[in-house]
């Protein structure tokens, strides 16, 4: 009973709260990082250095009037933010934050579950999120959101193809679909997969930027063009759900990149046991995992502060004419190498 | 002859003039103007019959007298000559705001010691008789042409290599209510190759058709729309003659001199307190 129900429930509780807090602080981090890039201070008023800003934001969004446009499709309009946020959160179930640890005399694994098709699960659940975006735009019954949701869904679907193709070549290397097994495979291979699959990593990260609608691929939310994107008509907490989902997705992309390419919870040089590197082993695995994920999150923000935005046709061209052919070529090369070695 | 025909249709709205083929209607006043350059007397007689059509917006009981001095000054008159007459005639019958309004710009002729630039000579040679009057003031040359010749002159000025006025800087107008041809439509031209400027000026009365120059300078499109919007100059053959700055359903043309600066014009002038009361009442009504 304890092992099958209580502990998983506890894990889910901790994970969900952790993720939600991380997401809200992600928003603060973004504001701070971009402010620093732009020679500003960012939020400074709520709490020291603005660290309580997320709480203020949450309160503000909660108490704001929740408007449903009169001509909107009420059911779909209400369901859309939920459809967006749920997949973004349940993906975390298969992400291994660390290996097994001993806690209170009991061995606990630092992931909610390890299913043998974990990677596919992430991809397929993430693909459900696109419904929320399409429906949110459609149900608003307004032109700009509709245009934005068409853009968004077309973008998500095209980049999903590229990302999935890229992941296949990684699966070929790892020989497993389970997230935990993939990390273990890196330990066995004595090398992080990013060094075996550099092209795949670059493709994955570009695709990840596009799938999370982040700059320079943030066209669906390009306020200069579409006044705000598919969530133009949303307000209050429903808008916040869209917002949170975007940041949760960023964390997912970063965490998956860490797991697949950068050795997950493994320390750098996972199999070199020499004295100068011993201190690396003292740091617990989950710290390594979070640190690596944080680096990717920072890159997300950094890119946003630096690059202009692609245009829609250029984005599509990049997806279909560059990323997908490269991903397929990478897969073919990987296959040949795997068979020949 | 066309003048007599126009006489009966006294309060003609601008549309009526549009019915006539644009080439035909401006021809007549234009002929009058051309002849005027030779003998001032002819100009007066030509201008007087044309006058009633200009009247509707600002009702003036009678003014052949006003019309006479208001007629564009002849080619080489002393600059001050027509003005005192204009004032005298205009003052009594105008609203205070425009009471001292002169009857027209001085359009001083070029002084004898300044030679007209090459492009004006060329224009004289190429299109004899197209220039009604030539004016020079603080270094600016102005060519006054009749509305009917505007397109010819414009096309020549743009295409001739010695003129090559390819850039239409500005199209605007000024309003001289006492004058029968109350509007001066002004085209500021510039040559990006030869780097000289000239102004073309066309005189037009209320409802007199002024051909659009968009076919020569596409840049004039919005500028002419603005002239129509703010002055009500009847610009014909314009590809898209809508109001541009004012709302589509606006009444009147605000940049005219007889258009009040604020509120319901006359009442404000006569008894400001009444006007204030009415406006407050209207405001409260709007709020409610």
């Amino acid at each position, binding site marked *: 009973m304890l092992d099958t129900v209580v502990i998983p429930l506890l894990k889910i509780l901790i994970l969900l709260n952790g993720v939600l807090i991380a997401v809200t602080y992600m928003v603060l981090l973004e504001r701070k990082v971009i402010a620093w890039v732009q020679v500003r201070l960012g939020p400074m008023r709520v709490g020291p250095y603005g660290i309580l800003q997320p709480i203020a934001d949450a309160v503000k969004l909660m108490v704001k009037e929740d408007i449903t446009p009169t001509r909107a499709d009420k*059911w779909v309009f209400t369901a859309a933010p939920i459809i967006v946020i749920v997949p973004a959160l349940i993906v975390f179930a298969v992400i291994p934050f660390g290996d097994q640890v001993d806690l209170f005399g009991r061995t606990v694994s630092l992931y909610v579950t390890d*299913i043998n098709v974990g990677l596919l699960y992430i991809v397929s659940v993430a693909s459900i999120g696109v419904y929320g975006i399409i429906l949110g735009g459609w149900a608003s019954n307004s032109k700009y959101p509709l245009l934005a949701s068409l853009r968004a869904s077309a973008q998500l679907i095209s980049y999903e193809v590229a990302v999935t193709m890229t992941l296949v070549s990684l699966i070929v290397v790892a020989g497993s679909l389970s997230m935990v097994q993939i990390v273990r495979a890196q330990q066995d291979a004595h090398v992080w997969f990013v060094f075996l699959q550099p092209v795949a990593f670059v493709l994955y990260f570009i695709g990840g930027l596009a799938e999370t609608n982040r700059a320079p691929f943030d066209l669906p939310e390009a306020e200069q063009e579409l006044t705000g994107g598919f969530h133009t008509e949303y307000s209050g907490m429903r808008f916040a759900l869209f917002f949170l989902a975007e940041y949760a997705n960023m964390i997912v992309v970063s965490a998956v990149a860490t797991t697949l390419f950068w050795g997950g919870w493994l320390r750098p040089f996972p199999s070199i046991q020499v004295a100068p590197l011993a201190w690396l082993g003292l740091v617990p695995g989950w710290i390594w995992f979070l640190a690596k994920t944080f680096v990717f999150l920072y890159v997300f923000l950094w890119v946003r502060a630096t690059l202009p935005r692609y245009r829609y046709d250029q984005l599509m061209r990049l997806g279909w004419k560059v990323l997908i052919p490269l991903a397929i070529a990478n897969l073919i090369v990987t296959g040949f190498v795997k068979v020949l070695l | 002859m066309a003048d007599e025909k126009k006489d009966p249709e006294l309060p003609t709205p601008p549309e009526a003039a549009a019915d006539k083929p644009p080439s035909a209607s401006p021809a007549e006043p234009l002929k009058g103007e051309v002849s005027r350059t030779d003998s001032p007397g002819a100009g007066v007689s030509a201008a007087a019959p044309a006058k009633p059509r200009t009247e509707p917006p600002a009702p003036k009981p009678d003014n052949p007298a006003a019309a006479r001095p208001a007629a564009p000054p002849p080619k080489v008159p002393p600059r001050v000559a027509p003005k005192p007459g204009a004032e005298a005639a205009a003052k009594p019958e105008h609203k205070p705001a425009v009471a001292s309004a002169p009857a027209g710009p001085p359009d001083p002729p070029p002084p004898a010691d300044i030679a007209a630039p090459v492009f004006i000579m060329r224009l004289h040679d190429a299109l004899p008789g197209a220039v009604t009057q030539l004016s020079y003031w603080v270094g600016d040359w102005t060519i006054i042409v009749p509305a009917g010749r505007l397109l010819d002159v414009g096309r020549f000025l743009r295409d001739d290599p010695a003129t090559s006025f390819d850039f239409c800087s500005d199209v605007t107008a000024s309003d001289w209510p006492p004058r029968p041809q109350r509007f001066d439509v002004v085209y500021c031209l510039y040559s990006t190759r030869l780097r000289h400027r000239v102004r073309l000026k066309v005189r037009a009365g209320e409802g007199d058709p002024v051909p659009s120059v968009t076919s020569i300078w596409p840049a004039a499109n919005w500028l002419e729309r603005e002239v129509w919007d703010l002055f009500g100059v009847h610009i014909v053959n314009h590809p898209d003659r809508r109001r541009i700055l004012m709302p589509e359903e606006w009444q009147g043309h605000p940049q005219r001199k007889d258009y009040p600066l604020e509120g319901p014009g006359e009442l404000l002038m006569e008894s400001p307190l009444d006007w204030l009361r009415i406006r407050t009442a209207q405001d409260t009504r709007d709020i409610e």
Partner: protein
Amino acid sequence: MAEAIAFYALSVLILGFAILVVSTRNTVHSVLFLVLNFLCVAALYVTLGAEFLAVIQVLVYAGGIVVLYLFVVMLVNLKRPPETHQDPRRQTLTGFVLAGLVLGELVAIAVYSALPPTPTGGVASVQGGNVERVGYALYVDYLIPFEVASMLLLVAMIGAIVLAKKEL
């Protein structure tokens, strides 16, 4: 016991959503019910121990194909009601024919499943998941039919593009 409850609950949901798909007036809603239907089918696969199939069901059908349905439904204006046909019984007739076909298929499946199971069709919950099993089945046991099917789909896809795009 628990499996049986899950199975019946899911079956009820699947049938319920299927009915809603055809009975809803709003086309977008009906597509949404179709998605729910697919998700329940995926859940059914999970209870059968076929996680790979379940994930693929979600990825391909719910995540890919139905999104395209949704595109079409949203973009093509379906607000106007379908014109009523001259012969109202025509639809009834087609309906009966189709219903008969489905009934025949169901009977065939029932008869087939009553036979003793073939050795290859055993439960696929071997260690390491059923990904390998599916892989072997597709690329070793049934390689030729698989390739033929994929060729067929490719031809259909190219044909559709050619039809839709008059000038290439």
